[in-house]
């Protein structure tokens, strides 16, 4: 429902936090729109994170202490920039490793021949 892509939402559900955490690791400081555009361009429009999924996830990450926010006022608008915390860096590593391991298992399980990404 919330993640619009060429993949089924069941497949992508649960990876959104990992995607966001990893993007923040590479790009230091990002705001919501930037994150959604980045994912879109990096995946050639194959994964498009909808706003309805992105902001709840960002709020949850902030509440859990994985990211901190910084408000920048642009006229009457307020833009929130998200940055990884030290805890967030640990969470990112854990989640990426977990996902990588999951992919290896799936690869074995489904007997696929794909390259394992470098983490």
């Amino acid at each position, binding site marked *: 429902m919330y993640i619009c892509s060429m993949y089924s939402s069941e497949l992508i559900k649960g990876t959104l936090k990992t995607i966001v955490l990893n993007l923040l690791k590479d790009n230091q400081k990002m705001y*919501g*729109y930037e994150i959604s555009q980045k994912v879109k361009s990096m995946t050639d429009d194959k994964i498009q994170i909808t*706003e*309805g999924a992105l*902001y709840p996830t960002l709020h*949850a990450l902030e509440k859990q202490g994985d990211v901190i926010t910084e408000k920048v006022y642009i006229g009457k*608008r307020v*833009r*929130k920039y998200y940055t990884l915390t030290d805890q967030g860096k640990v969470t990112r590593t854990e989640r990426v490793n977990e996902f990588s391991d999951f992919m290896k298992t799936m690869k074995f399980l489904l007997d696929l021949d794909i390259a394992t990404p470098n983490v």
Partner: protein
Amino acid sequence: MYSITDDEVEYILNDIEKRGVTTEDVRYNILDHVCCIIENEFNGEKDFTKFYENTIARFYKNELSEIERETENLLTFKYYYAMKRTLKITGLISTVLIAFGAFFKVMHWPGAGMMYVLGFVTLCFLFIPLNIVLQSRDDKKKSDKIVMIFGLLLAIAGFIGLLFKTMHWPGANFLFFGSLGLFGLVFVPIYFITRYRDPETRFNAIIHSTFMFAGAAIFFGLISLKPSLPVKESVESLNEYQETNIERIQKSNKLLNSDAKKETELINSSQILDTKIEAIRSNLVAKSNGNMGMDAMRNSLTDTRNPDDVGVIVDYFQISSDENSFQALEKSIQEYNEVLKTAENAEFLRPIDISSLQMKNTILSVVLLELVDIQLQVAMNENSYLSLK
């Protein structure tokens, strides 16, 4: 790139608020995102409002406030599993406690009451409330949720009423029959109507509603079950038989005493005890029937509206310490027995052994029969005393 004006920002912010997004943080996030999209994708040629409407529609499926709800859900997500686990555990605990409590109660073993109370408390104050919280978080229709929550609240009231009834606590009937009535006459029809409308749930609506209504009706019949009419009549006839016997003996005593024309200590003591018991009977009948004033004439079993009343025995006989209490009766009997011991021909007179009568935690009709029996014994003693003189 389109440059968005302050008025347009204001317009968007107001619209987001109007669409039910109350959290400031979420509101500003959406605002900035919409502004970014407009700046990047709007060329200024088309109608701004129309473009905005199309853009904001990308944010949700049914309504914009979904984002806020989803945020709340994600934030409380970690409690969700803990709640589900607690639900399972409390469900198991309450079922086991109530089942064992019921078994212990039937067997008259100690600890039954405690298990019962703990089981029902777990059920009513943990299991069902958790159920309500989890139900309200479900993806179901709003009307379904309200009906379910109403049913669960009725279940709490009904179970507490059932517990009160089992423990003989006051207010049980109001709680139990009130919630049972609401369940059968309000909840089941609402449940049926709301479910029947949906073709998917129509078949189940018929089955569930029938079961629930029949269950409520059977439950009502079982709980309100009273001893059958022949049993009631036989107990009443026994009482009448005893009372006639007392009257006959007392008449004969008067005749015997009119010859002797003597006011002895024993005869006085017999009269005092008899009057005391009459007063206790009147008091119990009056209190059970809810009469404020005491009517000395209405003190028989046939005068009681509720012969199975336990509360009146506990409250006005066992616990109380006034002139009509068990305590006062015990004292009067003791005094009577003392007089009896010193009377002439004492070996032919039988002292009253109140300890062999079970007068506590029992129903009104039994206590009334026991009291009449004591009066009968007093009259018999008096008769023997006067005959042997």
